[in-house]
């Protein structure tokens, strides 16, 4: 094991060289990245990992040189702008199953390292008219096919990709907030202060696909987690939901999954009479809602056990009257 000995010699130059190879190699396998930025010498722990070098050789290195990184900029900026060929991401939200468990919200916050009050995904309590029954309404970015936000961006910082996603490049964004004014769904949030993040996250290489690290003075929003799609994983909100409210998938493949079951997208929206929120605005959302018919939970279930501060949000609607 010649190569392994070289690494153990710990000559810094060799280490960086190998680390670079590892970096390229791991890019192919997904969620691993080298810790080449760390300044302190890493002590090998004896656990070996086999990796493929660009020359096609199998390299075995100590796993101490690797660190696990969930969010990694696995694609170039250009690719992040173009999106995944042949895909057309779509989401279906089953309103009859939502009981405001709020697991989606916390999973989203955790995955994107957002502070508690900055919700990319929010759950609203809707009551369409005085006599209508209230229902819970989870709302992410609709990734509209005719996005008002993209139209108004003066610097192309927010863009529509071929796979249907609307993303933001926060290294391009000048923070004029025009997109926020243009979005009728109040989806976008602004970093009013310097965002607080773990140091490792703050130093990570940025990609519009991960949205990490967040930056002060720029706009951000729900991104449908394309970094996870590339790994074949569902977005955290979908996975976290205990009731299978969210179906996420690809319109071209005609499949959507809520983690428990994978179903035909067209069949689902046909059978359940799906609708898109405020179709009349002409924004053509990529999120479909299944009407809150035959609901699995009484609406109060999502209210009673909430902490007071959250209760406050929905008080007006819960205690009668239209929103």
């Amino acid at each position, binding site marked *: 094991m010649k190569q392994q000995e070289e690494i153990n010699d710990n000559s810094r130059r060799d280490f960086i060289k190998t680390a670079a190879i590892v970096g390229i190699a791991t890019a192919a396998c997904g969620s691993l990245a080298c810790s080449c930025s760390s300044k302190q010498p890493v002590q090998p722990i004896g656990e070996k990992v086999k990796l493929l070098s660009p020359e096609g050789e199998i390299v075995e290195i100590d796993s101490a040189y690797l660190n696990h990184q969930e969010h990694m900029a696995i694609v170039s900026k250009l690719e992040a702008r173009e999106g995944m060929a042949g895909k057309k991401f779509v989401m279906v939200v089953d309103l009859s199953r939502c009981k405001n468990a709020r697991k989606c919200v916390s999973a989203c916050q955790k995955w994107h390292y957002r502070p508690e009050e900055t919700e990319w995904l929010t759950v609203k309590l809707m009551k369409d008219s005085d006599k209508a029954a209230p229902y819970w309404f989870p709302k992410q970015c609709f990734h509209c096919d005719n996005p008002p936000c993209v*139209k108004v961006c003066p610097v192309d910082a927010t863009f529509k990709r071929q796979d249907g996603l609307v993303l933001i490049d926060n290294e391009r964004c000048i*923070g004029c*907030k025009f997109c926020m*004014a243009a979005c009728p769904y*109040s989806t*976008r949030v602004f*970093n009013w202060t310097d965002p607080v993040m773990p140091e490792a996250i703050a130093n990570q290489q940025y990609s519009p696909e991960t949205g990490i690290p967040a930056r002060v*003075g720029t706009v951000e929003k729900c991104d449908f987690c394309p970094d996870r799609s590339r790994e074949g994983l569902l977005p955290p909100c979908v996975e976290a939901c205990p009731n299978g409210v969210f179906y996420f998938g690809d319109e071209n493949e005609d499949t959507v999954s809520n983690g428990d079951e994978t179903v035909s997208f067209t069949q689902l929206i046909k059978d359940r009479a799906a609708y898109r929120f405020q179709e009349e*605005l002409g924004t053509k959302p990529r999120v479909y809602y299944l009407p809150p018919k035959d609901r699995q939970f009484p609406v109060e279930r999502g209210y009673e056990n909430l902490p007071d501060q959250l209760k406050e949000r929905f008080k007006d609607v819960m205690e009668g009257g239209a929103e």
Partner: protein
Amino acid sequence: MELNQYQKDIFEKQKPVIENYGKKTWGWTIFFLLWILVGGYALYLQVADGHVVTGMRDNVVWGLYIANFIFFIGISYAGAVISGLLHILHVEWRKPIIRIAEMITVIATMIGPVFILLCVGRLDRLHHLFLYPRLQSPITWDVLAITTYFTGSVIFLYLALIKDFAIYRDAKLNIPKWKQKLYNILAIGYRGTPSQKRHIKISTDLMAIMIIPLAIIVHSVLSWIFGMTLRPGWHSSIFGPYFVLAAIYSGTGVLIMAMWVYRKMYKLNSLLTDKHFVYLGYIMMVLGAAYGYFTFSEYLTAWFGSAKWDNEVIEKLFTLEYYGGWFLFTNIAGIILPILVVAIPFTRKPGLITIASFFMVIALWVKRYLIIVPTLESTLLPMQDTRPEYIKYSATWVEWALTFAGIATFFLLFTLLSKFVTIIPISEFGDKEKTADDTSVPVKEN
């Protein structure tokens, strides 16, 4: 430069103004500078701590700054439209007031865009506007329109100034050397030859014609920043003309106020006569009526149709607990008051017209605020937020400080400029002999 008797009279009156700065002027200068300094500190805080120091949040993403932006670009219409239009129509009485009007235009166009920059979260990335411009965005239209308009206004002002610079250059004024030199450079060798005269006349006529469509484009594009969104209270086809009209209207008001201040300060009663106030008052009255008509049709249609989302904004404007009081104020002080003051012969006096203008200009500023904030406070989805600052906008001291710094900058630049050039143009009176009914030339001392 040979001056005729009237020109000499006008020049004599204004000589002391440009010859010495004066203690009083220094006092004002320092006062304005102090305001600007406070604004500078506020700006530092905003850049250092982020926009969290302002009252803007995720729902109300724009506030005072945008209102100021619209306001300043609006008053810049004084020069563009009033002066441009009166020039084209060869209205004789315009002569003493065109310089003031054009100065308002140039200075306000300099200050206005600063306020839109204050809304920008990443001032360090402004060059992205030119590196990655997107022509679809109304902001890009705005950048193009305002830079063109500003350039045009500067040229328009300068063209009218060249002859005057030549007069200052040749007048052997008691001024420092650098100032003399500057006049010399700025006069670009103007000697009053027939060919020079002709060139300036043609260029001025051209600019006067061009500045009007340019101005209309600027405020239309500005209104489309709002009109192009799907928001209630903004998404309206009337917005372009409505903004343009409001801009000319407020510009006239500021012009009347500036005239009053200068007349008082430099004792120019013989040049800025009562007639000027009355004539501009007539223009203001007509514009006020048109503005009132636009306002009425805009809110009538929204209220009568009463779509749910529209209605939310209308309700906020029509309810006293929300913005009802302010909305009422904008209509009384912004429409009814100026019309009445000018319409009734008894009140048609310079002082009262100026007071009416003052209230009208304030009312139009408030109106801009009422266009921005209530709409942003009315979201399509229920807000369901518990953070009060996210639900209702209220400007912080940082925003107010910067607003006042903007106003102070406006006054400061005005002061500086009026110490550099005579605010009553001298050359304008050159080519024409005095006629009996000509109000543009001095009649007699009051």
